[in-house]
């Protein structure tokens, strides 16, 4: 009886060493409300804040958070911001809040968050804490009765590439990394303490219709759609710019290859002539010649991110039209009565 037990314990200990992948982000209702409050109050500007919590196996628990002041480009103020962060963490520890950074949250406008800055911030966080997430909240979508809260992390293979800063086509092909694999969305679970749950059950209004129902059944989606499509078009423009860059690069590359070929033929012919004359052949390479200088391949990171954004807008438009269809048919049914 003892043997299988000890073995299983050993196995358990061994498997513990391999960090289990992050599967679920468990957020407290308090954190959701705090994030929403902060993002809504500054809905015109994009805001960020820090998430505090615990890392338990494959679950990352987010139990509290605090907002960052709006960042300014002054160095002195930046140092101030770091102080603020430390001070806040110290204060929160004093009232027994989990004092462990697990990531950050930020607001976004129509889900346009997939930027180089976000990737950079993520890498910064990743250096200090092994497991971190970024929670994105979209205030513009919540006006339609949707809780637009999403948790993201960068995929491991993407981070490896980013560290070596190697976004050439060859490397990407080697790693088999496409634009879909940059961000990993992690499912969100919501948890509330029994106390909060009791209070909310008591305080829930008696009315059968809540604010989110009104928001969801609103017929007007035009402004939202309009902006979404506008953003989509902008992104398409950006993407075609990126693609032009690549076309330019490939054109240059093929021109260079043709030049190299021509030079090589010339050199070979020359060497044949020299051989016939009994002279030493010249080397078939000439590093000093400018046509042998390798042309830098532009990074594909930008175009990958833009592609991600476009896919995001497409999803959003699809989602909203889906909702609109149901609303329209509902209207039709009501009108027929």
């Amino acid at each position, binding site marked *: 009886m003892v043997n299988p037990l000890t073995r299983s314990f050993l196995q358990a200990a061994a498997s513990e060493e391999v960090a289990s992948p992050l599967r679920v982000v468990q957020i*407290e*209702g*308090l954190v*959701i*409300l*705090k994030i929403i*409050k*902060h993002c809504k109050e500054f809905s015109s500007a994009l805001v960020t804040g820090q998430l505090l919590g615990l890392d338990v196996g494959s679950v990352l628990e987010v139990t*509290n958070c605090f*907002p*960052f002041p709006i960042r300014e480009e002054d160095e002195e103020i930046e140092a101030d911001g770091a102080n*603020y962060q430390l*001070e806040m963490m110290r*204060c929160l520890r*004093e*009232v*027994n809040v989990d004092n462990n950074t697990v990531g950050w949250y930020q607001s976004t406008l129509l889900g346009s968050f997939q930027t180089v800055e976000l990737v950079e911030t993520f890498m910064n966080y990743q250096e200090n804490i092994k497991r971190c997430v970024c929670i994105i909240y979209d205030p513009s979508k919540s006006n339609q009765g*949707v*809780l637009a*809260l999403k948790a993201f992390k960068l995929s491991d293979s993407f981070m490896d590439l980013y560290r070596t800063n190697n976004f050439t*086509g*060859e490397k990407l*092909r080697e790693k088999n990394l496409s634009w879909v694999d940059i961000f990993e969305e992690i499912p*969100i*679970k*919501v*948890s*509330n*303490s029994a*106390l*909060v*749950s009791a*209070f*909310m*059950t*008591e305080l*829930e*209004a008696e009315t059968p219709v*809540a604010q*989110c*129902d009104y*928001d*969801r059944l609103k017929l007007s989606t035009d402004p939202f759609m309009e902006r979404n*499509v506008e953003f989509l078009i902008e992104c398409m423009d950006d993407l075609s710019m990126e693609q032009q860059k690549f076309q330019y690069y490939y054109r240059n590359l093929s021109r260079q290859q043709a030049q190299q070929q021509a030079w090589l033929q010339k050199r070979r012919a020359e060497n044949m002539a020299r051989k016939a004359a009994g002279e030493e052949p010249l080397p078939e390479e000439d590093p000093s010649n400018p046509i042998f200088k390798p042309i830098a391949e532009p990074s594909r990171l930008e175009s990958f991110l833009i592609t991600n954004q*476009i*896919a995001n*807008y497409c999803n959003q*438009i*699809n*989602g*909203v*039209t*889906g*909702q*609109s269809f*149901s609303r*329209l048919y509902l209207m*039709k049914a*009501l*009108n027929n009565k």
Partner: protein
Amino acid sequence: MTASKHTVLQFVPLTSSLSARVHPVVIFSICDYYVRRPDQAERVIGTLLGSVLPDGTVDIRNSYAVPHNESSDQVALDIDYHHNMYLSHQKVNPKEVIVGWYSTGFGVSGGSELIHDFYSREVANPVHLTVDTSFQNGEAVIKAFTSVNLSLGDRPLAAQFQEIPLDLRLIEAERVGFDILKKTIVDKIPNDLEGMEASMERLLTLIDDVYKYVDDVVEHRVAPDNSIGRTLADSVASLPKISSGSFDKLMNDRLQDHLLLVFLTSLTRTQLSLAEKLNTAAQIL
């Protein structure tokens, strides 16, 4: 004259109709701090932030916990902590100022007067919010108070805590949805269509309820209530009268618009995967 001989008990009336409104995030943080309270602590207190609206309502929008120690006759409040935290909160949102303080427990208790006195020096007329986390009456009692000074002549005699109306409608929580906030664990945040489905279902049950009520009234099973009848008539009348032809046109236009958008997005996606393929093809070159 006689007034100088008589001692006059002065009662300073409150400035007009003071009321308070509390945001759900405040209740959540109070509960969170209470759950995380230190050993032996019987209650927890903290500062309330917010603003006073033009109509005199105190809008309590935010809060933070303040550590404190309480014995039978004295209260020690970590004033440094309170000030540091206030400064930090000011950096994020300068519009939120101190409006009062909260405490857990049922109604006003012993040391409250001292703490209230401290907050009176921070802000004029602070609001005292009590949250009954022990559910003494078996219900969630949340009350707001202001204090009224009773003075004997010029001599302050006592302070009386007076309950003020508190608005607990929690619109913000409604927007998120109580389905998420009132359960101890929710496995998944509902996405667009699931939320829509839930709302539609609720609407359907409402319509069914109305049908049932109207049928009951018509069949003389329930005594008719004129006010309900009027509300129903109003809501039916609120549907704009459109001729079926123009309604169909409107409906079809909208449908076409949306279908076009769906088509466009699918087209874009196809383009994206095509571009992806072309990119990899170029790499093999």
